């Protein structure tokens, strides 16, 4: 029983970073009805820029964090310009393929920056590990959970209580009607990309600071985790993304404990598959109908 609770706690802590990745996918999907496959790769490139500074100049971990965030946002804007802005709105397949191509390009760029396979990433935690009764709370993971909670809270305030949030939600609901209200939809889409890149950058930094290492596979890994968590929770739903991320973290933690490390990813894929068959809209997603169904057909 103690193991079960400990695993659940660990899962929730690590799942909080999955939640941030899923939010990145879900907001872009909301605004554009597209999947940005290059999301993980842009985070990876940002983190590589931070790692490069760390490796060559041994800079402070906070400088690494800042560099990671700034470069992830720049990479996100680059992806938006090339994959989404430049390609017509009705050519969904073209922008999906081009986001895949940009993914490869960003990965190349990262490998050019740091050609070795694995690099050390500085660890980061605000508080040390502590014990609460029989349970252990690791410092890095508690930090991750706190960061994620802060990000989700800030996002909620931004989306519900600011002028930009109103514009972003209006564009997600109906880009045409939003344009009639005088909302500059192209600008909102660019800002949405910058925003999710910031969220993704925080998630990437928190994960890498926990793992204390980075490889070029991080982009693929982050895209997978984010997509799975989003699909579990429900596409286009912010609470869904949070729920999906936490659920994915908990499932993985239990699978790793009870079945072994090699079943960790497999159990997550099985869960996703079951979800796609039984409830394709995800846990909190609306039943797919109307405009969404149309969007899916276009994708």
């Amino acid at each position, binding site marked *: 029983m103690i193991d079960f609770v400990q695993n659940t706690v660990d899962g929730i802590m690590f799942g909080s970073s999955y939640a941030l990745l899923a939010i990145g996918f879900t907001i872009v999907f909301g605004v554009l009805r597209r999947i940005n496959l290059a999301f993980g790769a842009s985070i990876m490139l940002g983190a590589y820029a931070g790692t490069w500074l760390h490796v060559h100049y041994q800079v402070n971990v906070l400088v690494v964090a800042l560099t990671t965030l700034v470069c992830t946002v720049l990479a996100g804007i680059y992806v938006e310009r090339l994959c989404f802005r430049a390609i017509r709105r009705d050519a969904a397949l073209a922008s999906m393929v081009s986001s895949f191509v940009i993914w490869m390009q960003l990965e190349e760029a990262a490998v050019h920056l740091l050609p070795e396979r694995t690099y050390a990433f500085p660890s980061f935690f605000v508080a040390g590990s502590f014990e609460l009764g029989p349970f252990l709370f690791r410092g890095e993971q508690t930090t991750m959970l706190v960061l994620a909670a802060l990000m989700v809270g800030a996002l909620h305030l931004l989306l519900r209580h600011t002028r930009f949030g*109103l514009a972003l939600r209006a564009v997600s609901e109906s880009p045409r009607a939003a344009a009639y209200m005088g*909302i500059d939809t192209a600008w909102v889409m660019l800002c949405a990309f910058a925003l999710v890149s910031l969220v993704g950058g925080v998630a990437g930094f928190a994960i890498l600071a926990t793992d204390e290492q980075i490889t070029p596979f991080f982009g693929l890994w982050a895209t997978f985790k984010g997509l799975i968590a989003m699909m579990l929770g429900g596409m286009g739903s912010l609470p869904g993304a949070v729920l999906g991320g936490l659920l994915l973290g908990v499932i993985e933690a239990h699978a790793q404990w009870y079945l072994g490390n090699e079943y960790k990813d497999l159990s997550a894929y099985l869960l996703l598959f079951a979800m796609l068959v039984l409830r394709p809209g995800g846990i909190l997603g609306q039943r797919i109908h109307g405009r969404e169904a149309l969007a899916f057909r276009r994708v």
Partner: protein
Amino acid sequence: MLRVRDLVSSYGKLDVLRGISLDAAEGRITCLLGPNGAGKTTTLFTIAGILSARSGSVLLNGEDLTRLPAPKVVSRGIALVPENRLVFPRMNVEENLRAGAYARRASAAEIAADIADLYRRFPRLEARRDQFAGTLSGGEQQMLAIARGLMARPRILLMDEPSVGLAPLIVDEIFRIIQELNAEGVTILLVEQNARMALTVAHKFYLIEGGEITFSGSPGELEEDEVIRRAYLGAQKE
């Protein structure tokens, strides 16, 4: 007043508007009448800056809006109530109204005051202020779309077929609202297929066919015109 001169607009190579000129006088309801595909919505879209004009001009109180993008046009005082309402279905009524005020950059207090005014005007919207707009009835959604347009504090409200898809009783109600708004001083450019309803409210008519204005005149002149009577009013001689 809104002054449109020789407006040409096209989708790709196809000219949809072939030199439209019309005036919408301040404090009046001007109606643009015409069959499907004649260019009514295109005219509104071009005025609102959603489509860019190939040539011609759009002047609002003497200011040239022809080359401005849609966000600028809205902030200069032209608001569009689109066909089929197009409310934001999963935002609540109040958020829809706030979205309507987006281009104004008004203070929170001003916006709150305008929303309160509109709730007095449309009590049914106040009763549903926290409901998703998608759960409202067709007539309520049309009211919301109109109220959302008014939130921009426009000098002129462009309305694209407000009667479409609504039951006859609701259409009567919407046209009563249009008339009341006008009596309160709102200038309106109304696009309609329903000539009979339009006749009950509009002060000036333009008929658009094949991208050209083929008739302009008062309601009386419209009713006198034999050809229009047959084609649009479907009326036998009384």
